[in-house]
């Protein structure tokens, strides 16, 4: 399983490195969305850290949606899909590998966007640095759940519109937990219960993916 996961993760990352879709298409989209958030707020007001954190996570959510859709289309051309499925790879390994690649890609984007949030939406830098563990856990949840939902909708006629419909409601807790953690750090409150929730989400989707990815993929 681990061997297949590594193989798939390296392959997906290499494909991304060659095509640079995330660098040239997804990240500019994310930065533009951050700018739009600033425009929507208006020039007079300064955002509170809590609102800036919420906007940051909304943008990360949108960016992850694009990365997930991209990850699901790597094998989408019919010939490639056929010959890859004939390799008979262990589905649990494929799930973990794809999720790992998505995780690294979204994490990198999220870090850049976090820097952008401190710059554009005035999120205090110390706060941003303190919240890094929760960012990592949120991105992990997005990647794991997203990879499973990406497989659920792959190869279907309406998949580009169907994926957000399925993914967004399930990711509501990630958004809430991520934003709350940053707000809690800002106001010096405890945030361990939010970290607990994130860990439960991540572990739950890891187990669900390992068990169910094969059922979904076996088409």
């Amino acid at each position, binding site marked *: 399983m681990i061997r297949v996961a590594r193989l798939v993760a390296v392959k997906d990352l290499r494909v991304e490195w*060659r*095509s640079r879709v995330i660098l040239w298409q997804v990240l500019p989209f994310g930065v533009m969305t951050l700018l739009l958030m600033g425009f929507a707020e208006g020039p007079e007001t300064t955002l509170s850290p809590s609102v800036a954190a919420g906007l940051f996570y909304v943008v990360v959510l949108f960016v992850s949606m694009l990365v997930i859709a991209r990850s699901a289309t790597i094998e989408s*051309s019919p010939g490639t899909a056929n010959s890859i499925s004939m390799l008979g790879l262990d589905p649990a390994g494929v799930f973990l590998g794809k999720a790992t690649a998505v995780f690294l890609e979204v994490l990198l984007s999220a870090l850049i966007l976090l820097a952008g949030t401190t710059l554009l939406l005035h999120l205090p830098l110390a706060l941003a640095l303190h919240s890094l563990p929760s960012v990592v856990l949120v991105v992990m949840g997005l990647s794991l759940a997203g990879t499973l939902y990406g497989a659920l909708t792959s190869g279907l006629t309406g998949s580009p519109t169907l994926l957000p419909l399925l993914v967004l409601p399930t990711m509501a807790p990630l958004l809430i937990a991520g934003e709350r953690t940053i707000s809690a750090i800002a106001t010096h409150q405890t945030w361990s219960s939010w970290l607990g929730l994130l860990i439960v989400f991540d572990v739950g989707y890891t187990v669900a993916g390992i068990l169910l990815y094969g059922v979904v993929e076996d088409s």
Partner: protein
Amino acid sequence: MSTVVRLDDAVVTAGRFPVLTGLTLTARAGECLVLEGPNGAGKTSALRLIGGLESLARGSGEVCGIDLRRGDRREIRRHCGWLGHEGSFYDDLTVRENLTFAARAGGFDIAGLATSVEAVGLSQRLDVRAALLSAGQRRRLGIAWLVMRRPSIWLLDEPIAALDTSARIFLQGILEDALAKGVCVILSAHDNTMELRAPVSRLTIVGGRIEMGESS
């Protein structure tokens, strides 16, 4: 020679449209089965069914002793290899990376890579991205992928489309070699231009089932 593929009155649907409407055929190890017929007759669907990529709506079938209905289709797929005319690999990876991936995925020795690349004549293009290869070279990469994996059933979807004469002769050589080693080759073609020095059966598919067939 042992029978590796058996389809009996197989019906496969795409949505509500029956693409296969009662296909019956058998294929043996070391034999080449050519599926002929017009566009939309169901040739590709037949190959996909045999490769464990489609589910049976009706009828029955067996591939490598595994039941198409109740058996583990993932196991069937491991026995099969696919070569499509549109490319059956990752366009963003180089020739070497593609083949390394296929070898590692199947647990094969990377040493086989050099031999298979040699066999298809792509040694000079190892570090070229697959997307940049010509149509003939893309086909060769697909063949190298097959040669390296050595599956017991080769499913070739229109393998000679868009190939020039020398490339066709080359493909024939590869197929004859594989057939001699006991591989079962099933290929689709809309015109009859392959002359193989091996046992060949030809079946014509029209409207999703066999119209006529002959063996040589």
